[in-house]
Each structure stands twice: as C-alpha cells, then as structure tokens.
C-alpha cells in the first residue's frame, strides 16, 4: 500500500537573531504506512518535534520533499486537505482547547471545514464516544482532569476523520492515571479505527507498546525498527540520552554478568517468563 507520509531527504534550519543557522534536520528520510503505530524517540532538541511539524505542513521543508497522502506539503492550495488528513495533538492540553464547552470544542475543526450542522453533531458525538468522553460533552474544560482534557483534544482531531494523527508528547504533563487513559485511547484509535499513529514521547514504556520505534538524534534517524530490536541497543540508546524499560535493562545487566538471556525482552511478562525459567533451571 502507498505510504501515508513520505519524507525524502528533509532539511530544516532554525535561525536565531545574530546567530549562525542551526541545522535541525539533516537529509532525513522516513516513510509511514497506513495503520502503523510509530513511536518517535529522541532527547529534547534532537529534531523530533521539528520532524513531526512537517507532517501536516506547519513547517515546510527547506530542502527535500514531504508528501502527505501523495500531496507535496508545499502546495498551498491543498493546505486544509493536508491538515484534515494528518491531525496533530500537542503537549499542553490547556493550550489547545478553544471553546468553553467540550462538545463545542470538538466541533471546532468541523465548523472551520464548513460541514453541515447535522453532520457535525453526528461526528462530534461519534468522536466523543471513541475517546470515552461523551458523558462530559456539556462540561467546561477547566472542570476536567489533565487526561480528560487531552482526550477532548484528541476527539477534536478525530472528528475531522483524519487518516493519521501525530501526537507531540501528549502525556508529558499528565499524572500516571492520565497517561494510562490517553495511551489506552490512542491504542484504541489505532486498532479499532485503523488510524495511523505517530507518537512522540519520552516514556520508554509507551514506546514499547508501539509497532515501530524510530530514534532521532541530532537531526538524523539513528534506529528504526520494532521495539524489541530497538531496545536491544541498550548502550546506543543510553549514549543519546534515552532510557530502556527496566525489564530490558535488568536482562542487559544480567547478560553483562555472563548470562546469555534473549536480548529482546521489553515487557514485564516476558521478563518474568525468562527469569522464571532461569531460576527453575538453577533450582
């Protein structure tokens, strides 16, 4: 199938006044297929947010090309088509909710697109149900918890019926409960509705839940593989300021002590199984 997002040799520079331009993206190429659930990892300033902003034409490539659904993002007359296809959710839930009532906010994008009122109503209800916030449709945003606000923000994007949704550290400002709610919602959108997800995150346990992990460092892609493969590169990840799940780290440490356990352990259950086997042998 055709890729939903194709970035080919992207280059991007930031320039602060009176300083030399900083190259943030360096000939970076990536393709994202429909239905994928991709995590993008990288420390602050690695260029991952800049990359994500190319996916819905908030930033335009200064070198190279970026296609969304086959459309070159530099085509100005297709701007709204691109933004409708690839929705974006940001870190701070407070700063992306526009209206004073939840359902009005979810309707915002559809109103901008000029959708018929009855159709807006239908799609707003559908979007609110898919993130589990239908009961809160008449609440004011400030009465909600962080996780709930973030789900409303996601509903506001889902209502546009995008093919892909890009989330820029959506859980960074949430407590563990809120993080769980949001992750569950995102996973559901991917599995049940087949929406392509690009999740930028600092949390390794979240990345471990994805199909594919892309590690960006200094404007280039360092690793791009399944979570199991990526997290087996413990040393490389630590070198670029990233972590691995504790389960992976424990196995890695044990292997350094001379054991030879499988290197691709990323989940708790896998780790328990491996350790149980190890302990029963030595008993």
């Amino acid at each position: 199938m055709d890729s939903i997002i194709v970035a080919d040799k992207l280059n991007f520079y930031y320039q602060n006044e009176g300083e030399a331009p900083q190259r943030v993206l360096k000939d970076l190429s990536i393709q994202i297929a429909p239905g994928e659930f991709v995590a993008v990892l990288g420390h602050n300033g690695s260029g991952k947010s800049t990359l994500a902003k190319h996916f819905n034409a908030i930033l335009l490539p200064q070198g190279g090309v970026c296609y969304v659904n086959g459309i070159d993002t530099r085509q100005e007359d297709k701007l709204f088509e691109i933004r409708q296809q690839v929705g974006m959710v940001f870190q701070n839930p407070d700063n992306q909710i526009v209206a004073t009532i939840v359902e009005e906010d979810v309707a915002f994008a559809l109103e901008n697109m000029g959708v018929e009122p009855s159709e807006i109503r239908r799609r707003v209800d559908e979007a609110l149900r898919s993130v589990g916030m239908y009961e809160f449709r008449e609440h004011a945003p400030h009465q909600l918890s962080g996780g709930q606000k973030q789900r409303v923000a996601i509903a506001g994007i889902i209502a546009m019926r995008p093919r892909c949704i890009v989330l820029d550290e959506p859980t960074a400002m949430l407590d563990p409960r809120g993080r769980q709610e949001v992750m569950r919602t995102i996973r559901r959108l991917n599995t049940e509705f087949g929406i392509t997800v690009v999740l930028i995150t600092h949390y390794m346990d979240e990345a471990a839940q994805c199909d594919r992990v892309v590690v960006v460092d200094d404007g280039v892609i360092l690793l791009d593989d399944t979570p199991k493969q990526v997290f087996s590169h413990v040393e490389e990840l630590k070198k670029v300021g990233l972590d691995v799940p504790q389960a992976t780290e424990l196995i890695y440490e044990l292997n350094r002590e001379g054991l030879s356990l499988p290197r691709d352990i990323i989940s708790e259950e896998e780790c328990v199984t491996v350790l149980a086997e190890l302990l029963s042998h030595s008993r």
Partner: protein
Amino acid sequence: MLKDITIGQYFPGKSIVHRLDPRMKIILTVLFIIMLFTANNFAGMGVGILFLVVGYLVSRIPFSMIGKSIKPVVPIIVFTAVLNMFFIEGGRVLFEIWVLKITTEGLSLAAMMALRIICLIAGTSLLTYTTSPIALTDGIERLMSPLKHLKVPVHELAMMMTIALRFIPTLIEETDKIMSAQKARGADMESGGVMQRAKALVPILIPLFVSSFRRAEELALAMECRCYHGGEGRTRMKQLKLSYLDFVCCGFVVFCLLATIVCNNLLPSVY
C-alpha cells in the same frame, strides 16, 4: 483566594427562560430597558416589576440573587436617590432643615430613579443568569452579523470573546500559582505603601504575561491544525432556531411595554 471568585453568572437550568433563543433574550432585554425608561409613573414601573417577578419565578432563579447583583451598585443608587430627593422641588414640602428641602415630588422621583436602576440591574442579570456565556457570545455574533457588510470584524470579535471566556479560569489558576511561588521565595505582598505594593506585583505580572503569550502561540498553532481560517465558509454545529416559545415571550414583553405606555397616558406623570 482568587479561585473563589465565580466567573460568569450563569446558573444552568432547563426552564423556559433558559431555553429561549439567546438572540431573542438579548432583544427582549433591550425592550425591557426601553420599558423602564418610558415608564413615568409608579403604575408603569409596577408593570416592569411584575415582569421581573414573573421572569425570576419562571426561570427558578432565587430572588436573593437580585440582592447579590445589586450590592456593588448600592452606592450609586443611594447617591442618585439622595440627589433627586434634595434637589427636585415641587409639591408639598415635607421636611426642611437649613437649605435642604424634601418635597413630595422629590421623594417620588427619587423612588422612581432607585427602582429604575434596581430593575435595570435585575433584568440584565436575569439575562446572564439564564444564558451561558457561549450562547450569549453566539447571540451577539448573529445579531451583529449584518454589520459584516460595514466591514466590522464580527466573527473575530466573537472569537476573541469566546477565547477570553475559555482562558479566564486557566489564567486565574495560573496567577494563584505564581503568587504562591513568589511568596515561597519570600515576596511580601501584604505590607508596605502603595508604591511598594505596586512593585510587588512585578514578579507576578511578568511571568503571567510571558505565559499568556506562550499560551496564545500554542493555541494559534492548535487552531491552525484544525483548519481555522477566520469566519469565511464557517458553519456552526448549534443552529439557533426561533420556536413558538420565543414568540410567546416576545408577545408578553410587547404586551408589558404597551401596558406601560397606557399607564403613562392614563395616570399623571411623577415628573
């Protein structure tokens, strides 16, 4: 604490008054104000009061709320009443000390003025008590939409109002937080003279401005991501439709207005 200030006077409910079209409510409020100012005797004013009583009863807003909304303007009411009382002469003299005279006419005019202001406040409060801020904004936007042809940025103004309403609670919370943080660093905001207190506000206002700009920037980006491009070609989820209820209420208000005019003509004016 700042958080305790209630923002927006809206009392959610399902009464007839709540369900009226906001545009109609705004028009009716304007008519009510006209009614108050046409009334020139107590009978006419009585019609206005009767209208208010019916309005509050139907919308189930407790009458004590009137007291609450009038409280801040009590000095103005007293001031106007006192001025009228002492400086309007005519009719029988009731009381006289030194150069001050209180006459029957002065007294009734003072009462009229006080009643008028009280009714004015109570009436407009009824509008805000029964209409959510967003419906109000919506109503204003649509009533003003003919002005678009005169190049008045009606949509933009309404959008600004909505965003302001949305961010007031957020910014109040933020102010609270910044105040606590600076107090924790020993900032003293409770003592000192006017100058010192004004100076003590700097550590609160600067971070507040900086964060408001940051929020504005992020919000603009989020709005762009949701295809916002001004009011052109925009539809709305909630259509405003006038129902028979709106016309019934409108009829009632027009009837009250006519009653006031009849009272004006049949009974002597207090002026």
